[in-house]
């Protein structure tokens, strides 16, 4: 059992190192090229805040291209248009994620509708699962032999 735990810990550490290394590469690459539009687009599609840019800006420091912010925002705005939809709202809620109010006011309505529906459906599913679990539990209880009778 102890050996198994050790293997998991090593694996976890390796994964973490790998992730940090990838991140470092991403930043270096991003600072030196002009893929900021794409980065902005992906950021919005992932439902992340526009302020994600600030992290990269600080890390790139002097290497930050002059047009980085503008192109990032162009991509981000385009990404928002794809992200702020009914489906996306629904999926966000269904995945149990919080509504971060990322969508600007004028694009928010559809997303909110989807999110509300997704949230309701998720809640219904949870309730249904709970009901089924309760039922199963009750059935188990009912099937268990009564020691007093025995």
């Amino acid at each position, binding site marked *: 059992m102890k050996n198994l735990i050790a293997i998991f810990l090593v694996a976890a550490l390796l994964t973490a190192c790998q992730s940090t290394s990838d991140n470092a590469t991403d930043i270096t690459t991003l600072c030196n090229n002009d893929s900021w539009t794409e980065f902005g687009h992906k950021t919005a599609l992932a439902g992340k805040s526009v302020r994600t840019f600030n992290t990269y800006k600080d890390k790139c420091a002097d290497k930050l291209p002059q047009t980085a912010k503008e192109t990032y925002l162009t991509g981000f705005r385009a990404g928002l248009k794809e992200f702020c939809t009914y489906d996306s709202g629904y999926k966000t809620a269904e995945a149990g994620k919080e509504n971060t109010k990322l969508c600007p*006011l004028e694009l928010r309505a559809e997303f909110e509708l989807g999110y509300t529906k997704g949230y309701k459906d998720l809640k219904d599913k949870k309730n249904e699962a709970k009901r089924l679990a309760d039922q199963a539990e009750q059935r188990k209880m009912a099937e268990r032999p009564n020691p007093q009778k025995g």
Partner: protein
Amino acid sequence: MLTIIKKKMFTLSCLICLFYGTTVTASESNAALTIKLAKPTFVLPMFTGPYSEREASIAPEEYETAERLRSMLDSDEKEAVLKELESFFDIELSPAMLTLKAQIYFSLKDYKKAEETFLNVLSRKPQLVRVHRDLGQLYLLQDKPKLARHHFSEAVSFGSNEAIVHGQLAYLNLTLHGAFSAITSYQQAMAMQPEEVQWQQGLLAALSQAKMYESAQALLTELLAKNPADKELWLNQAILALNTNDTRQALVSLEMAIMLGESDDDNIKIATQLHLQQHSYDRAVVLINRHLDKPVLDMVLLNEYLTWLNQVDMWQQAGKLLDGLASKVETMKPAKQSVFYTHKAKVAIKKNQNKQAGRYYTLALEKDPTNGDALIDYALYATADKDYVKAELLYTRAAVLPTKMKQALLGKAQLYLNMREHKSALQELQKVYSRFPELHYLAEQIEIIKNIIRTEVKVNS
């Protein structure tokens, strides 16, 4: 809060209003008469105050911030509000908050950022009429009338019902697309603000330019009934009268405007000219004297008046006018003195004071040897006085001046003809014709003189 527009208005003096800037050309008989009106002022809201929810919704999460910013704006802390708004990415702000940011840039005269921000708002919510209106104002201020017109037009098409939007759209239509495209908008602006002078004047200008004189006159009559002491309205009345060839009415209206304080040089000149046309000479002379009674004498004006007076043979009045100005002559520049003495010479000729006339012409040319009018007039006088040598010399001098060359060469040719020196006359005419080929009639004259010369040769041989 944004509705406190009027308190924050400023005058946009750089705008040129077609109406007041317009000079209306009179009918054929009064073709040279143009009445000038003062430029109007258009008002623009510089800063329209903090955001009002009626225009565009703010996001629920912004309520608290909006309230705080509102109180800061009430305390006139615009820079602090801007700093706070700039701490957000534009995309994080609702269009309403972003509009507020643009308006603050506008009020702080950072027009480039204001424009960018307004356009940013419109890219997100193209139907925001207030933003179209503000951007229109911004472009108007920056003298970009086509862009301004576009946004006012957008504001109207998205349902704006503000008089200022209709009025400014009308003004821009008037300047960019002609009178007919402006009339309806001016009427709408006037329907909302019937007492607003700039809409009344704008509509009047549009109706006048569209040659809808009856409507313009009806409006003007109504306005004059309300404001009989408004000299601008009387000037408009004069313009309308000139357009309809009603010279008498034009003169009456101009006199009303003058009585109410009108002092524009050109308008006084027109009144004088109309008086001369109507043979009311006494009043014309009164106007001339009053008009010339300034610390610095306007010689161009004097020259014009004296020319007119001479044209109607009022040389005595011209003489009096010159006598009255004699005290100012010494303070004038030599070129102006030269003009003065030329007129003195003309008056002297009319009075048959020939020696004095010659003396004045000599004096005029001493003061300014390049006074073309003096050279030509003196040459004509010398010709009439049969002093051909002097006349020839004067014409030769005048011919050197580009503006007088044609007149001098023709005069010289005429002088030779008078002296029966046909060969010299022919040479001069050929010289004129080669320089001024548009004088077609000279070809015939040249042929006639050639024939005369041929006949003379035959007779002499």
